[in-house]
């Protein structure tokens, strides 16, 4: 299954026909990127059960890391992406230490405030470009600068690399102690503690990894857009997308983020292209309606529906065992 999906994603942009249009390629890149980003969020929000609306901050720190390396210091974006990711992990630990004392919904509410704080901070911070943001200079295209102007194919394979990194990690995690401990903390912190699970350490590990990977996605995002300003990355709107994609696809499931992104991102991009003149919120209205439908019918999202269907199928097929 895993290798099949990898192969499919690898050949997708090569298929001749409608997928060859620049717009379709743009949608493919964004879909992969948001699948990655939502999976990074899923590590903390889905597997560990700590719903965070603050992930756009980590996403933004990664974006600024790469952006400042290129724009401010004239380097390649790579060291900036790594430093940004490490910084995001450190920031996540600093802000989550007090936040994890809050349980359940209160943790989620606290993360709302953090987005606002960082958004304002970056708006007025001259060193990072303030409200104007950072605009990329035109430099040599290629993998060294992670920048292309002619086609989107390389961006797509860049996102594919990110996809392999993040999804492989989660696949490994699911089959190892960390994955079981994350789920144990989600399902019952007291019970987990009684079994020797240090729930605070587990949650801090989850958010640090989650923030690190989110920042890498942010670095990709800025390279793709070739500019960054605070509202582009550090906004509740952005945070909301990671949350909604994962919930739609299936919270705490491996395929959920990919499925959610494959449904919502094309929908968002095409509805924007078609009804953009209405003032831009149509995609969010559709998002909202979909989420309400899914969550009231099947809290496990699309993956929940699929699991339900496969169990039913197995039950009717092999009734004798």
């Amino acid at each position, binding site marked *: 299954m895993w290798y099949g999906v990898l192969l499919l994603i690898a050949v997708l942009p090569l298929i001749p026909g409608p997928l060859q249009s620049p717009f379709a390629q743009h949608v493919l890149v964004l879909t992969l990127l948001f699948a990655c980003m939502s999976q990074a969020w899923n590590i903390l929000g889905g597997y560990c059960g700590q719903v965070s609306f603050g992930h756009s901050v980590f996403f933004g720190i990664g974006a600024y890391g790469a952006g400042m390396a290129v724009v401010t210091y004239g380097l390649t974006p790579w060291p900036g992406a790594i430093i940004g990711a490490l910084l995001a992990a450190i920031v996540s630990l600093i802000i989550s230490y007090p936040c994890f004392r809050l349980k359940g919904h209160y943790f989620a509410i606290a993360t709302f405030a953090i987005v606002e704080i960082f958004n304002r901070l970056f708006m007025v911070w001259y060193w990072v470009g303030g409200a104007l943001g950072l605009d990329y200079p035109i430099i040599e295209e290629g993998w060294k600068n992670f920048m292309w102007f002619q086609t989107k194919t390389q961006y797509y394979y860049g996102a594919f690399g990110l996809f392999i990194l993040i999804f492989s990690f989660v696949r490994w995690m699911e*089959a*190892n*102690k960390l994955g*079981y*401990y994350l*789920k*144990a903390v*989600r*399902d*019952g912190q*007291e*019970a*987990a*503690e*009684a*079994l*020797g*699970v*240090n*729930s605070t350490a587990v949650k801090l590990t989850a958010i640090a990894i989650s923030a690190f990977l989110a920042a890498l996605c942010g670095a990709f995002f800025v390279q793709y857009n070739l500019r960054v300003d605070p509202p582009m990355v550090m906004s509740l709107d952005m945070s909301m997308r990671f949350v909604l994609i994962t919930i739609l696809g299936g919270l*705490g499931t491996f395929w959920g983020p990919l499925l959610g992104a494959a449904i919502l991102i094309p929908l968002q991009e095409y509805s924007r292209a078609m009804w953009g003149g209405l003032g831009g919120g149509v995609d969010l209205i559709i998002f909202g309606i979909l989420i309400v439908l899914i969550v009231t019918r099947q809290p496990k999202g699309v993956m929940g529906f699929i699991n339900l269907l496969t169990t039913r199928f197995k039950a009717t097929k092999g009734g004798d065992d």
Partner: protein
Amino acid sequence: MALLEVRNLIKKFGSLVANNDVSFDVEEGAIVGLIGPNGAGKTTLFNCISGVYKPTSGKVFYEGTDITGWPPHKVARLGAVRTFQVVRPLIDMTVFDNILVGAFLKTSKLEVASEIAESCLKMCHLDDHRDKKAGSLTIGLKKRLELARAMATQPRLLMLDEVMAGLTGTELKEAVDVIKDIKSRGITLLVVEHIMEAIMPIADKVVVLDSGVKIAEGPPSEVVQDERVIAAYLGEKFSKRLREMKA
């Protein structure tokens, strides 16, 4: 030196004294029963030992180490693991995965942990429910799961909080057999129980609590004859029956 030593433990909730100056020992390899009427402070005492509550004063020693006020996960790592009276299954995980979480305490390797979990699954007769979601089990099975999960951590001291409550006759017999089996593996047990017919025959020692105070400690045969225990908890008729059962 006893494996677990509780010394002058006091736990207050505001003006309510839930445990008042309780001291007792749990000797290595023994089954120690902790009994008493509802509200006697048995679960509170459990919570103080396992680190869920911090005692107001007094000390808890495990293998001579002062573990008073340690967080639950550190106590569990030392080898003192408890179950909950109000069962706490990890509802979204399967029965096997629940046990696996316990098994990961002593190893980080999935294969090793799976082997441990597999044997605990069998020991507690949960084989048929291996891949069910823990949340979908009946209360009797959830109690068994609590036990299997705690056993998977490979404890030296196992603290069971009413694992036998609400079980049917056959389930009860099975549970008693499982506890005997655990003892035969050299694990020390501290057992809170209300079902006297189940705990009295297997306990090496019984500690009786009433209104937060220890009113008796000793072998079951002596404790059932203790005037204060009869008055506070067992009652005349029941004490007689237990004595006859022993004989």
